[in-house]
């Protein structure tokens, strides 16, 4: 850990101003940033605490819900508005981390968490293009069991670790950002960046910009949605594969569908191709398998993580099957 100065922002304007300075990091729950600072992966000179800025309301707004960026994961998951209208969000949150971490971590911070690749995070003396641009990628030919199979590049194969971001991508979430140049909206699916040849650039957040709130639009496929997470132990672990799915089924036919995958992409992996396969088709296993094949088209393993291609497909099929089961039964009745 390196020396840094710490200040509590007294207002949003003050935070944005302070945040625009070089080598500055915002801190909310600190569950990711502090770990990385201890390992010298993050070396901010200034840390600006934004916990006093409010941004912690969950409110119904026109056509959806708006959730403040400082809402804690536990609070969001437990809120009736989220749990009833956006079950995939609540489930993804509750399947993340541990109760202690969920009590501390903010939603905005969750979207900003950095990758778990061991070469990035722990073996800080080894090459890593994300940590040390241009140095090389140690994971490609190394320990890559947990790493991504979609959206990878020569420069980086690290998996985006968030479950919440996957659910948010599935439901067309929108982020409100405020910065020195004012306020703007960004689709959750556009917020995180593919690594390409610049894996150190992970998101569309300019210097000084804060995520202030998250909007999720109502939809039948949002209300009937679910998150399935596959992992080596029963709780408190990052996904090997996961699927955030939403379905609107009528008379056994899929009217609309949402699909995003976790544990497999270098960013939260929305699969509009899979959705196209599902749309208008009967809600049965054949359709789900076809969607899964489409979702994994172009997936590429690096050895240890080859199994994620098949596991990812099966995860999606299972998630869709379980979500559809009562809908299909209801449609028949």
């Amino acid at each position, binding site marked *: 850990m390196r020396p840094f100065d710490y200040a509590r922002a007294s207002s949003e304007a003050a935070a944005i101003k302070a945040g625009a300075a070089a080598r500055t990091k915002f801190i909310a729950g600190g569950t990711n940033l502090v770990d990385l600072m201890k390992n010298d992966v993050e070396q901010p000179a200034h840390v600006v605490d934004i916990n006093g800025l409010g941004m912690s309301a969950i409110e119904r707004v026109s056509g959806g819900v708006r959730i403040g960026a400082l809402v804690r994961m536990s609070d969001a998951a437990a809120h009736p508005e989220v749990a009833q209208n956006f079950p995939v969000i609540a489930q993804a949150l509750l399947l993340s981390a541990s109760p202690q971490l969920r009590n501390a971590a903010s939603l905005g911070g969750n979207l900003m968490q950095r990758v778990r690749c*061991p070469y990035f995070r722990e*073996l800080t003396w080894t090459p890593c293009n994300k940590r040390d641009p241009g140095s090389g990628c140690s994971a490609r030919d190394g*320990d890559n069991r947990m790493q991504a199979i979609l959206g990878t590049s020569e420069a980086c194969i690290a998996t985006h670790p968030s479950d919440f971001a996957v659910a948010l991508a599935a439901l067309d979430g929108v982020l409100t950002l405020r910065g020195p140049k004012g306020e703007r909206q960004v689709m959750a699916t556009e917020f995180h960046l593919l690594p390409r040849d610049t894996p150190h650039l992970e998101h569309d957040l300019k210097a000084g910009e804060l995520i202030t709130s998250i909007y999720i639009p109502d939809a039948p496929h949002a209300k009937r949605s679910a998150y399935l997470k596959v992992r080596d*132990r029963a*709780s408190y672990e990052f996904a090997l594969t996961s699927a955030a799915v939403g379905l609107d089924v009528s008379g056994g036919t899929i009217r609309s569908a949402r699909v995003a995958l976790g544990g497999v992409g270098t960013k939260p992996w929305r699969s509009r191709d899979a959705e196209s396969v599902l749309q208008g088709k009967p809600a049965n296993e054949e359709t789900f398998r076809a969607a899964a094949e489409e979702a994994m088209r172009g997936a590429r393993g690096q050895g240890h993580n080859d199994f994620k291609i098949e596991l990812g497909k099966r995860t999606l099929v299972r998630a869709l099957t379980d979500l559809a089961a009562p809908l299909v039964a209801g449609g028949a009745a």
Partner: protein
Amino acid sequence: MIGEGRDRVDGRPKVTGQARYAAENNLDHLVHAVVVMSTIPAGTIKAIDTAAAKKVPGVLTVMSHLNAPKLNFPGSAGGGRNETGGPTRSPSGGGAAPGGPPAGNYAEPKLIPFQSNAVHYTGQQIAVVVADTLEHATHAASLVKVTYDAATPRTDMQALRAEAIVKPPGPQSQPFTKGDPQAAFASAPVKLDQVYRTPYQHHNMLEAHSLVAAWDGEQLTLHDSAQNIFATRQTLSRAFEVPLQNVRVLSPYVGGAFGAKGSAWPHVFIGVMAARAVKRPVKLWLPRRQLFFTNGHRPETEQRVALGATQEGKLVSIIHDCICQGNAVNDYNERSTRPTRTLYATPNMYAVHKVVELNVSSGTYMRAPGENPGGFALESALDELAWKLNVDPVELRLINHADVNPSDGKPWSSKSLKECYARAAERFGWANRKREPRSMRDGRTLIGYGMATATYPAHRAPASAKGVLNADGTVVISSGSHEMGCGTATIMAQVAADALGIPASRVQFLYGDTTLPTAPISAGSMTASSVGAAVHEVALALKKRMAESSERPLEVRVDSKPEESAQQYSMHAFGAHFAEVGVDQDLGIVRVRRMVSAFAAGKVLNAKTARSQYLGGIVQGISAALMEQTHFDKRPSIASFTNVNFGEYLVPVNADIRNLDILFVEENDPYINPIGAKGIGEIGIVGVMPAIANAVYHATGKRIRDLPITIEKLL
């Protein structure tokens, strides 16, 4: 009173925060040490630039081989002096052969820190920064710049298999041959010949290796987190060339150890050196990441098991040929054929475990060293043989039950393995098992039943104890043993109270301090047996003196040691595990739905702490079966463990552990020791991994021979 399930005496102080662990000894004028690790696996240090580090406020010194004092150690020119006064090491504790000179407990006898510029593995401790605060020391340590002359490392155990060597010297590491195993295997009507693999694992006890070292002139006090304080005292006395009585080691509370704290690892020397250099007490508390490199691990193993049998299932030959990772700076050998040498009757046997020296940090004892990985291979092979023969796996084990120790022919002091099989099988409902693989299911979950045998030797080492009767009728018993969470402090009071005929609440047990009577390493499942015997004897002696004398306080001492007559027996604890697993038919997720385990380990001293010991072993076994492994990146440019934190190094959470049922099969063993207890710290884990792997085969029809059984192996 013996056997009663009493609460742990250390429970309340621990949950209320009153218990003071080594790193919580915040002595006056305390300063902090942070260690710098090597970032290459092999070569020499060319230069160390400490200029930036020294500029950090509060830095007192930066020490490395360039400026450290020379220590007296086995590999140094003056090594071997001052070799008196320490205890011998246990059979499982490493160090000198029984009867030889006490060797102390150097974890890496050929690598005492800062004595040369040689680098033997990634993560080697090569420098230390001492500063007024932990933050200053941590920052300064990150600024130490080291340059190297790198050499080509040896990192690939499989590729270097042909260079495996027998080490260390001593009978337990030598190959064992009985009869003509190769010919018997070749001519056997039924043969099984397979290779099994177990991965690197780290102890990952919750309390990190940590210490506070304080010098007062030539007197050293070390607050350590340790399993072997007397050997550490011996080691430090020798290394720093001060008389034994000048060194005091204290370790009253240990937050888990699992074998890794039985030896003096490099940080112990570093902390003591640093404290001497700055003339202030030094705290050294290793961060989790560093623990993965410099404080031991269970080496990876590769094990060939070849079984020859008659059509009726009688074993005619057992061949068990193992290699494990080792290195050039310590002599650790994961002696995986140990269970093979004791478990089954066979006229022909070959058992060998060798070491492939790599540029990888040092292996060491980890809960049931040898028995645990070896048991996986042997008991998986037995299961495979049972399928080949179409014999029930329990029946196959009964057919081959060893009525005497198969390697030395000695009779058992006691053995109740058949009762363990019978009682656990009945409680489990083994008879309900459908024979064919993939024949049982619960919805989308494939169900499988599997079983395996557990075994662990019953050791006893010399131990001393003191008993004091106070005027108020309370009794203080003391022996410098350790409490790593096993229940030692609790059961010792029970043992003493039982012998004295007074309530346990009137007995206090003192331990964890080298000013107390000598106790052996707390390892090899022998503390109850060794220290328990001494406590029992001192209590009886005190009772006798009480009748003779009205003097108060009244003090007696005993030096307890194993009876010579016990040598005519082979002494082991045995047990049996039965596991039910569920495997998701599509997703490959394995969960252990329930286990029933029966153990015969002599007398149960405290039903509550005994059950906890077994449970802990079983949980650790489930962990090893399904998730626990340290990944090693063997590319020469990296040569490092990778998943070096609790995010990626998986151990079970509560949700992974379902219904575990423990049965005690009590034995009356008059030979093992005066209290009749065999020791139970390790047997709980032995056999869990194969029981689960065998159940996974029954559930899925897939035989997994390399642990852990992760999803990709079942897709």
